[in-house]
């Protein structure tokens, strides 16, 4: 901690007063005694240095505090900071003005496989997730170039931005005939199909790059009004051009998220009546 000018000055004055040679001549109590003024100037110079050292220490600590470990989360945050259409400041890893509207990557997750980072990213298209487009306009190339500049030298990153993994679901749905019609729509409002809506909402509400667990989907369906017994007969996913493969208890989508198309959703409605 820097001392005050007065403290330093008093220290010099005390040394003079304590010295038998000096105090014989320098004993004036005048505020503007020349020896007092000279000592004061020296005190100011010392005080300035002490203050500057303190400032520098604070400044270094502030920079250190703001530095983050470059872990997986840091890479995910960097992906989200990408601004489409802006250039990075020269030799720096950020933009001149952060602009939320240009930050097109809404979801990012980074995984480590065999020393390579797989960066899964998606943007929001209305309420649906969508991959970064590759043409008209090309969003993926600028993003990849941005990652190349901000990543650590030597870290291998593979950017994954593709259509969500397709989910193919075949279910038996035992419904309450007092609430639901035999085509699955609500008796009170034929525009709603509770089972289908619940499945779509559940898939949409999954965290990005989170696990899809069919058993939890059944739990969610059971909470839906009018659905008594949801039974999953078959649950398969596929990524890209791969074949559909059966979900073994749980699955993390390769693209980070799932989509279910109407043609992949087969619901067999069965009335829950005792025969």
């Amino acid at each position: 901690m820097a001392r005050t000018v007065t403290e330093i000055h008093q220290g010099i004055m005390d040394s003079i007063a304590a010295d038998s040679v000096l105090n014989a001549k320098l004993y004036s109590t005048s505020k503007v005694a020349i020896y007092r003024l000279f000592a004061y100037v020296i005190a100011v110079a010392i005080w300035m240095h002490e203050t500057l050292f303190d400032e520098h220490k604070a400044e270094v600590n502030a920079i250190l505090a703001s530095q983050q470990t470059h872990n997986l989360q840091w890479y995910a945050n960097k992906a989200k900071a990408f601004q489409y259409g802006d250039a990075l400041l020269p030799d720096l890893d950020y933009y001149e003005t952060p602009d939320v509207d240009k930050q097109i990557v809404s979801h990012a997750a980074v995984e480590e496989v065999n020393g390579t980072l797989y960066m899964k990213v998606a943007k929001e298209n209305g309420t649906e997730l969508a991959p970064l487009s590759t043409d008209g306009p090309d969003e993926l190339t600028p993003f990849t170039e941005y990652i190349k500049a901000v990543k650590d030298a030597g870290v291998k990153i593979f950017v994954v931005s593709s259509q969500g993994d397709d989910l193919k679901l075949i279910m038996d749905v035992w419904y309450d005939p007092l609430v639901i019609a035999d085509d699955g729509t609500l008796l009170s409002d034929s525009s709603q199909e509770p089972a289908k809506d619940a499945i779509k909402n559940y898939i949409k509400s999954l965290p990005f790059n989170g696990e899809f667990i069919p058993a939890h989907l059944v739990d969610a369906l059971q909470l839906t009004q009018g659905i008594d017994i949801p039974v999953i007969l078959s649950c398969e996913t596929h990524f890209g051009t791969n074949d559909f493969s059966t979900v073994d208890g749980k699955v993390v989508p390769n693209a980070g998220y799932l989509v279910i198309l109407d043609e992949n959703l087969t619901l067999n409605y069965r009335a829950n009546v005792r025969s």
Partner: protein
Amino acid sequence: MFEVNWATVVNWLMPPVLRTAFNLNLLTAFLSPFQALYNQFKIYRDANIYTLNHNSQVCYLQGALNDAFDVDQRRIRIDDAGGENVTLLNIDTDEQPLMIDDDGTGYFITHNDSAYNGGSWDFIVVIPYVMSSSELYRLKALVNYYKLAGKRYDVIVG
């Protein structure tokens, strides 16, 4: 904050009646060691801030290397290693002569080892001209200082 004009400091601290050339010059002489200390501190501070603001990220590492070796044209860049696949042409034991370019089929391009997949490099520092060995040592020391521990690199002229 960190800029100090010592002549002004001396001037301000003396009461106007005592601002004689003798007094001011004497004080300036008294303060000259402080001034030297201050200048050293400033250099030290700038170096600290510079070091703290650079790290192993490609953009910062590239910036640090260009600041040190190619201030004006900034041609040093950092590339990923790998990308090219090794094509096996012929193995030694075949003892077959092999023509790799018959002038009829176009070009035959070979790369440095580090450009091939599965090599022992993680990134490549591309420098614009052939450096003297002392310069190269300085460059490597700088890269080693900033790079992530465990990452391997090659320096090539490109």
